[in-house]
């Protein structure tokens, strides 16, 4: 039997798998745990601007139901009692799903995304919705209709984006799984900025049904959490073929063997990458080498074109995916007797500046007369990048480089310079273009005390092998265990 056990809550930085054991051993009830987590969301979560909606009532009810199941000795899910959040662009039956855009203000999806259904079926409890850049377009979480999100390690800095809310929550506090989406680095870059672990699965491994689309051929939902093992448990739950997403299927691992040979991507440490970032990731390499991991240098020359290629493909697909927000069926309408006028005023007022910029860019690169020079060329570059990565992965088990070329920057520092913002993506877009899995882990802190992240890319389907490697790293190095001062409630 469980006593009133508020005094035996897990540590603030505890992982979900530690919390699972904690609940299992009866040290506290799910209700106590959830109510404490809700408290964290209401205080720190809101102070950081990371959480938009908190589902206190339903979460507490579900916690009670979970406690009852546990008491009755019923079958429990693999994430039984663990709190989880969904990014504002992932549909949930409860609350709103506005993709942090004024265009969709108050939009109620009415149904759970497949990933949300799967988390619930595994016993996890939906506690709230995390903020993100508008329509997941951004790398600083400054374009959210719900305001800027702050980095838990330094509130004057950005948490990265677009899954900035999810990463800020995962960096600040343990116990939970956060569902984010990654189109060009939107899980990994904020994870690196907030010292969380985040992964972008192989494209197609996790259903996108219920994700508000940005660049469909690049979008992938994935988990952000404290450590690689949490991500691994979450991925087990999230992955698999979904009859409602024709592009989803299951993937075999290329090998059961653990990763022992890593390709060191030369282009990931070259021009435009801050020296402090390079040094921290090089230090991590030495630690792994001491454990017997072999490193070989690889060159991916086409990576230099990756960001340009990404900007063309992502904006092209976005221009089409966001056409449905026209004020007729979905999206805030500015009424007019003239149809053209209705479209243009609804879309001009509903979308923020960055979203408008990308829709215009995407429309341009698909336009007659330009499509071959832009979209067509980008498609062939994408193919080259994919082949280059896969050919590099024939000789090594994984590829390694930093996540972000620089440390978390100050709020407002880059927001007026789109090119400076797009530069955040130079090391992350490659995995999306190739469709391969990538895991970002905390590497260390720089001399200003700001988190530095690094990432591994693997073959299609090698998601769990990458997470195993990440777990090995997290045994060798405990950077990931740090929790920011004042981060917790």
């Amino acid at each position: 039997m469980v006593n009133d056990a508020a005094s035996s809550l897990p540590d603030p930085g505890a992982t979900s798998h530690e919390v699972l054991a904690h609940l299992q051993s009866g040290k506290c009830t799910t209700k106590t745990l959830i109510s404490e987590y809700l408290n964290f969301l209401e205080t720190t979560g809101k102070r950081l601007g990371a959480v938009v909606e908190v589902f206190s009532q339903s979460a507490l009810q579900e916690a009670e139901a979970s406690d009852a199941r546990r008491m009755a000795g019923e079958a429990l899910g693999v994430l039984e009692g663990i709190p989880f959040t969904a990014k504002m662009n992932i549909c949930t039956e409860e609350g709103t799903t506005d993709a942090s855009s004024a265009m969709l203000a108050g939009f109620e999806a009415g149904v759970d995304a497949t990933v949300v259904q799967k988390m619930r079926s595994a016993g996890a409890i939906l506690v709230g919705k995390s903020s993100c850049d508008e329509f997941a377009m951004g790398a600083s979480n400054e374009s959210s209709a719900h305001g800027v999100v702050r980095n838990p390690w330094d509130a004057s800095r950005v948490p990265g984006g677009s899954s900035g809310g999810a990463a800020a929550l995962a960096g600040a506090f343990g116990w939970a799984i956060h569902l984010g989406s990654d189109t060009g680095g939107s899980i990994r870059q904020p994870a690196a900025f907030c010292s969380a672990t985040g992964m972008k699965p192989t494209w197609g491994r996790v259903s996108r049904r219920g994700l508000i689309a940005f660049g469909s051929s690049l979008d992938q939902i994935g988990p952000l959490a404290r450590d690689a093992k949490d991500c691994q448990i979450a991925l087990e739950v999230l992955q698999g073929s979904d009859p409602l997403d024709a592009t989803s299927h299951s993937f075999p691992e290329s090998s059961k063997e653990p990763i022992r040979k890593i390709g060191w991507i030369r282009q990931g440490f070259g021009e435009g990458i801050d020296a402090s970032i390079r040094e921290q990731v090089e230090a991590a390499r030495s630690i792994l080498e001491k454990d017997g991991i072999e490193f070989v240098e690889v060159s991916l020359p086409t990576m230099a074109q990756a960001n340009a290629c990404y900007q063309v493909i992502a904006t092209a697909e976005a221009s089409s995916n966001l056409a449905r927000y026209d004020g007729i069926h979905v999206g805030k309408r500015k009424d007019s007797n003239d149809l053209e006028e209705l479209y243009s005023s609804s879309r001009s007022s509903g979308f923020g500046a960055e979203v408008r910029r990308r829709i215009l860019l995407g429309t341009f690169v698909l336009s007659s007369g330009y499509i071959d020079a832009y979209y067509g060329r980008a498609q062939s570059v994408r193919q080259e990048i994919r082949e280059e990565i896969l050919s590099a992965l024939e000789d090594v088990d994984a590829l390694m480089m930093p996540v972000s070329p620089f440390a978390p920057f100050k709020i407002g520092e880059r927001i007026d310079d789109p090119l400076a913002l797009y530069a955040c993506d130079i090391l992350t877009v490659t995995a999306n273009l190739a469709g391969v899995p990538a895991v970002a882990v905390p590497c260390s802190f720089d001399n200003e005390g700001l988190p530095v992240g690094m990432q591994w890319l693997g073959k299609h389907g090698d998601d769990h092998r990458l997470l195993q490697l990440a777990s090995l790293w997290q045994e060798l190095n405990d950077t990931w265990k740090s929790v920011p001062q004042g981060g917790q409630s």
Partner: protein
Amino acid sequence: MSWNTVVGLEIHAQMATQSKMFCACRRQAGALPNSNICPVCVGWPGALPVLQGEAVRCAIRAAICLGCDIQELSRFDRKNYFYPDLPKGYQISQFYHPYALGGSIPFTRDDGSAAVLPLVRIHMEEDAGKSSHEEDGTSRIDLNRCSSPLLEIVSEPLLMSGTEAASCVRSVRALLRWVSVCDGDMEKGNLRCDVNVSVMPEDAVELGTRAELKNLNSFVSIERSVVVETARQIDVIEGGGQVVQETRLWDQDKEVTASMRGKEDSPDYRYFPEPDLPVVWITEDDIQQQSGNLPEMPEDRRQRWLNEYDFPEREVVPLLSRRENGDYLESLILEGVKPASASNWFRGEILKQLNEREERIEVFPVTAQSLALVIKAVEEDRISVATGKELLQKSLDTGSDLKTLLESTDEQVQDEGALGEWVDQVLSDNEDAVNKIRGGDDRAIGFLVGQVMKLSKGQAHPKKVQDLMRARI
């Protein structure tokens, strides 16, 4: 100068599937507006299209019967444009890699010769919803049709007149109906047609500039619009002008075409590959399975009927227009009706009834089984042809079962004893008429037979009555 007309077709056929193309919603006409919709077909945020196998199987059947080269790999693209009845802001279509190339449509040239119109391609695409604009300026949108599966059949520009164009569309319609791909009701819009028209001097080699006539929804409008548009283009050229490439609308009431938009105003659809759908992979097995499922094709049936049933050619042609008609006819024969009487009854009575009732044989209330009983009774002289037709009419009028009606009908009296009594009585009552006949005026025999029929309340066998009468006069 003498001018030639050159015509090409783009035929849009709604596939007669149970469900829509990318979701499980029912594809049903006539439902309450916005009742057959789901998150996928209305483009709800987060919803993704999933290609339904039924639509692909249907498309394969169409491609087989038009003799196309079915592509092992094809894919979908997005055609982007804004319109209120297109809730996603794009239509899912096959632009770059259609599933079927080539093929042809058999048709009849104006000179009566048989010909084939070569096809460029067929592709699958989803339909948009329906907008209706009311006089007070209100527009209403019905999304039921959204994502219904369509085939677009594109021909080479090798027809020479509106009547040839109409002949082709008739032929496509008959074929698609035959293999249950499309209902083919132009008035209901499930078969629509765009026609490209250009003119060129009789001795020229290069095609003239074409105009595209949109959304023609009847055979008359196909025929007439080509005639009118040809005349307009010739007028333009002979008046020293140039035909411009444009899209024109046909006004059936006024019999004119009017410019809708020029080439410069034509929308830029920004086609690109649909990232939400994997490539469509059609295997040899898939094709085999569909060709194995195809019904006997019209040409094969024609040959067989000519051989097996000895039908005259002119009788066969109208019986081949719809497969279900022929199936009914064949059921009559299987029930034991002689082929010649089955054909007579079908062409005479059934087609007339279907016409009057404006219904299709599939819903005709009299089954081939019970009709066969009636026809056989006529063949065996148990009832007269007139009685047989009366029974059919009565069954249709009252809804009574034809078999029951037949069973309660008295059979014709053929017994010479009974007939002799009626004949003797009529002969003795009508001496004048008997004398006329004896005097060589044979016309009165009909009158006398009529008297016997009256006396027998229609039960007497008229042929036998006449024979008896002649013997006794």
